[in-house]
């Protein structure tokens, strides 16, 4: 950005104040204090980040407390910064004018003789209080911004790798209706309702799911093998709560294992728990 400034007074008349409550106009001439430390061009840069940022920078540059803003001084510097933005043809957005109007209003209220102190009267408040509260609220995010900036820089120094494609070797379509499934279906229904899933999709989901079915089958076979003679209760094959997809996948894996004769299921009574057994430990390797 160029730092050369046009000479001569500029005015903000092209941007009328937008504050509806303000009776003050920005036509009010602003005395230029050339060389004043508060209006160096770098505040114009700061101003791009918003009117509150500009105000905070002016307050910092003047080494004054937010709680105790020398309002006349700051107002003057603020308006001068806005003028320079205009001079540089940067345009001054409405929100800057809004804060300018607020500043001017506060300044004029502070110049007025203080009304008689009356505790029932709202006028007892410092005219700057609201602006101070806003500045404080805004300011508290400045430290986190610096933290984020540091983290961003640190993070940019490290690199991650893309996921490797490990999902290529499973396509195991299940032919529909080849296995007698009615009892298992009931069990699945129970399971789905336990998982808080509506029952409708069960039939619709069964045909041909194939994602990572082989892996699920390996997992189930391994569990069955570990359980040995005692078998695995059907419902404990599912770790609830889990995604419907997991349930369906496990279910399909079991169906496929039954079909391939690598597992068998028994049930004594119609509503009893189904027990699932591995047919043989030697079969584990055969799944792949």
């Amino acid at each position, binding site marked *: 950005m160029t730092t050369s400034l046009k000479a001569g007074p500029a005015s903000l008349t092209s941007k009328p104040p937008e504050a509806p409550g303000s009776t003050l106009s920005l036509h009010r001439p602003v005395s230029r204090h050339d060389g004043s430390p508060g209006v160096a061009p770098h505040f114009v840069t700061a101003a791009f*980040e918003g009117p509150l940022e500009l105000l905070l920078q002016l307050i910092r540059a003047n080494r004054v407390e937010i709680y105790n803003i020398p309002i006349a001084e700051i107002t003057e510097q603020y308006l001068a910064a806005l003028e320079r933005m205009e001079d540089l043809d940067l345009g001054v957005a409405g929100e800057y004018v809004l804060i300018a109007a607020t500043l001017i209003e506060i300044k004029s209220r502070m110049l007025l003789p203080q009304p008689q102190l009356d505790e029932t009267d709202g006028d007892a408040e410092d005219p*700057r209080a609201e602006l*101070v509260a806003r500045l*404080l609220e805004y300011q508290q*995010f400045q*430290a986190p911004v610096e933290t984020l900036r540091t983290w*961003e820089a640190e993070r940019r120094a490290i690199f991650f*790798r893309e996921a490797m494609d490990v999902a290529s070797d499973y396509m195991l379509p299940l032919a529909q209706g080849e296995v007698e499934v009615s009892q298992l279906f009931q069990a699945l229904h129970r399971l789905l309702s336990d998982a808080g899933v509506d029952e409708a999709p069960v039939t619709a989901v069964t045909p041909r799911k194939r994602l990572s079915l082989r892996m699920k089958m390996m997992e189930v076979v391994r569990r069955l093998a570990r359980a040995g003679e005692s078998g695995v209760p059907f419902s404990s094959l599912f770790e609830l709560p889990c995604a419907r997809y997991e349930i369906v996948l496990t279910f399909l894996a079991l169906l496929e294992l039954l079909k391939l004769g690598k597992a068998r299921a028994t049930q004594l009574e119609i509503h009893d728990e189904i027990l699932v057994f591995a047919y043989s430990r030697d079969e584990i390797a055969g799944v792949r």
Partner: protein
Amino acid sequence: MQAALEALLFVSGEPVPAADLARALLAEEHIVEAALRELQERLAEQEGGIQLLRIANGWQLATRPEHEEVIARLGAKAASRLSRPALETLAIIAYRQPITIPEIDAVRGTSASGVIKTLLERRLIVEAGRRPTPGRPALYTTTQDFLHYFAISDLSELPPLETSPTPAPVPAEAVADGRAAVPAED
């Protein structure tokens, strides 16, 4: 277990929660957590090319920062840095989420809508419902990608805000001081 963990983390291109690793390893989560910490230490001591980070609610391998330059020379691309208004908006969302655009604007004193678009595109924030007030303004929250972008594990790592988050009423003494100071002005 450490070796298997390293292999698992190597193939996955995103942070993996310890629970997922435990499931893959058929091991208990606290054992996996301990092994992860050991692996993290081993890699740190070794000062090799990679490190193990706790990031975005999971664990992920990454290069060590001292290799940045070399990697950049190989042609790794990095996303552009966030502007200050973007960082500021992001900070406000991070601390106040879920939050609406008008609420963000009120804090910043300037319009955030352009910045919001950038943050949404970069998936650092998402829309998460709407406030049930007139106009039903959209609510925004930070994402997993936000955590990942700043390489932190969760939001609790953000530094505490220094002053109270709600617009603090100006302390009585300050107001009094302020008034006392008035005559000193021009």
